């Protein structure tokens, strides 16, 4: 750079007047509150280790259908065990087929290698009859781990499904009581419900900030605000702080130069370690303003009534409503997409499907039709796995979607 240019920052040597604006969150409240969650794994491990030393059971969970309230009420520590690492997949493929979804293989690889400290701490692993790949993988895992399987009805929104699921949640609660020698009183359940409602509310409010145009944080940053363990007080305090911090922030994040295209992400979860796809999307001229999946808003949208006379039935109802692609017919997912599209005003929808996830892959046909005809938005399906070699393939598609949204030449066909 030319020296004289860099030494004359202001025109005619005049000083810029002091800003009449309120102090920025950085000035008032210190640096962005991402630091706490950058150490998330360490915090969770310390927490789980200390809790276990004090006699609290650690319970591994495999899916958003596991009612965390039941575990919290029992004084247990619910920790998410979904694998997001490509590194554990080769170990899993010694027994699992290669064309199974990477999330299942990665999770199982940790099990085989005994390399997930939370799984090794776990006194119990809770899993569900969701997709076939998981169901059969849990059988293998259950050969040498204590497992409890919740039977999830696959037909959605029928009275019979809700009855069956409620009975299943109550059976689980009874098992937890017997196994850990606790009594799940109505008071304990209500306290757990309130704690989870508070966590959901805080995370919902934080996610809701991305409805702003421009959003004060990116989708990748939002993804950082999550924890393997639910209901930790230290996390709740930090969610609250993050909401205040970003809420006071105006304008786009510093890194964003051109105005990014607003996208809604739906489909499979981007669990810890597998956030790469969101990074690729946001490096291609887009911002993920809303995420309809299990690591996004899906499990946060509905709370549990803390005053319900039968807390377990109220808990069961909330979880039965989760719109996973293993349900048939999964109409709630489309309703959720409509609600979120209205709230977040995306300019396009990306569906992420992990390679080998049959239910999301097939349901994508329905979602595409819905997005294009009902929401009238462009739709792109990305099918990929945890391999970093996939980045270029994904980038090409997302960039093309971004170009399609922006219309590189004027409507009406452009000049010849």
């Amino acid at each position, binding site marked *: 750079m030319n020296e004289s240019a860099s030494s004359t920052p202001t025109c005619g040597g005049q000083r810029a007047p002091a800003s009449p604006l309120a102090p920025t969150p950085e000035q008032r409240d210190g640096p962005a509150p991402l630091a706490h969650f950058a150490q998330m794994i360490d915090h969770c491990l310390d927490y789980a280790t200390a809790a276990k030393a004090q006699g609290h059971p650690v319970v591994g969970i495999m899916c958003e259908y596991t009612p965390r309230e039941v575990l919290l009420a029992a004084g247990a520590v619910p920790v998410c065990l979904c694998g997001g690492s490509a590194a554990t997949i080769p170990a899993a493929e010694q027994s699992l087929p290669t064309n199974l979804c990477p999330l299942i293989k990665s999770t199982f690889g940790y099990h085989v290698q005994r390399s997930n400290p939370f799984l090794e701490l776990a006194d119990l692993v809770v899993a569900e009859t969701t997709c076939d790949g998981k169901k059969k993988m849990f059988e293998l895992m259950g050969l040498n781990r204590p497992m409890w399987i919740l039977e999830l009805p696959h037909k959605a929104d029928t009275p019979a499904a809700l009855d069956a699921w409620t009975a299943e949640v109550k059976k689980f609660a009874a098992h937890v009581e017997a196994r850990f020698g606790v009594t799940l009183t109505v008071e304990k359940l209500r306290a757990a419900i309130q704690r989870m409602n508070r966590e959901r509310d805080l995370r919902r409010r934080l996610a809701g900030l991305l409805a702003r145009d421009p959003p004060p944080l990116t989708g990748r940053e939002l993804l950082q605000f999550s924890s393997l363990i639910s209901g930790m007080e230290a996390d709740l305090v930090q969610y609250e702080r993050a909401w205040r911090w970003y809420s006071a922030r105006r304008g786009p994040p510093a890194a964003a130069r*051109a105005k990014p295209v607003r996208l809604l992400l739906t489909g499979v979860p981007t669990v810890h370690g597998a956030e790469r796809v969101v990074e690729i999307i946001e490096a291609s001229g887009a911002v993920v303003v809303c995420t309809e999946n299990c690591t996004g808003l899906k499990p946060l949208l509905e709370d549990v009534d803390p005053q319900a006379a039968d807390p377990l039935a109220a808990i069961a109802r909330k979880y039965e409503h989760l719109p996973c692609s293993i349900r048939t017919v999964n109409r709630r997912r489309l309703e959720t997409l409509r609600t979120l599209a209205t709230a977040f005003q995306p300019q396009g929808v990306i569906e992420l499907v992990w390679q080998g996830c049959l239910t999301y892959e097939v349901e994508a046909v329905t979602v595409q039709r819905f997005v294009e005809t009902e929401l009238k938005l462009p739709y*792109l399906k990305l099918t990929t796995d945890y391999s970093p070699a996939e980045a270029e393939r994904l980038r090409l*598609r997302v960039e*093309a979607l971004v*170009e399609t949204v922006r*219309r*590189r*030449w004027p409507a009406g066909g*452009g*000049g010849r």
Partner: protein
Amino acid sequence: MIACGIDAGSRTMKVVLLDADTRQPVRALAADQQPRQAELASALYQRALGEAGLSRFEVAKTVATGYGRDLIVEADTAITEITCHARGVRSLLPAARTLVDIGGQDSKVIHLDAGGVRDFVLNDRCAAGTGRFLELVAQRLGLPLQDLGRAAGRASQPARITSMCAVFAETEIVSLLAQGAAVEDVAAGVLQAVADRVATLGSRGFAPPVVLTGGTALIAGMDQALARALGQELVLAPDPQLTAARGAALLACDWIRGTMLAADS
């Protein structure tokens, strides 16, 4: 003033120079890819300018596309081959509604509407349905690639290749040849298999007019094979291997004229 498009494709590098005012072609060159593709692009760019009697200072904007688009040092911006193909076809055949590109390492179907790309489907996971597969087959049959289509044209009983996987299809070809199938019949069967594979990309149909583009369209008989697979006539893009480079150059023209949304600038 000159607008330039550079298409760094998986098998070939293409450079197109247009007069930015008239949008008429000034010079177009193509060369086989090489490992150091940035150097190849520079050399081809210089050669195109030299042959047109121009200097690089007369080039107002350069747009790069293709899988190597971010490596091209001459480029002012990079735009995906999906948008560039669409732009290139729109200029030559404004009525086109569907664009099929069978490239070196992928194939794509692009749906167009009045404003440009409506949506697109890509196959870059499976070699069946790509030019690379045809290269492998030509090699296996002992034919230069350009003769594959001519051989297929002489087929009396086109063979049926049933495997959807390029690796297994090659095994199938070996076994067909071992059973005494004619090279011509196998060649015809392979062209049809590639076309059938591409046809599966059109889950949303192929609204006419359908335009075939990409280097593979240069293989004689590829267009008829695809027409059979789609059950409809299609239009062969002129100079099909240059479509994306031409589209990139046209987008550079649009940029110069201020009609492109230069979101990256």
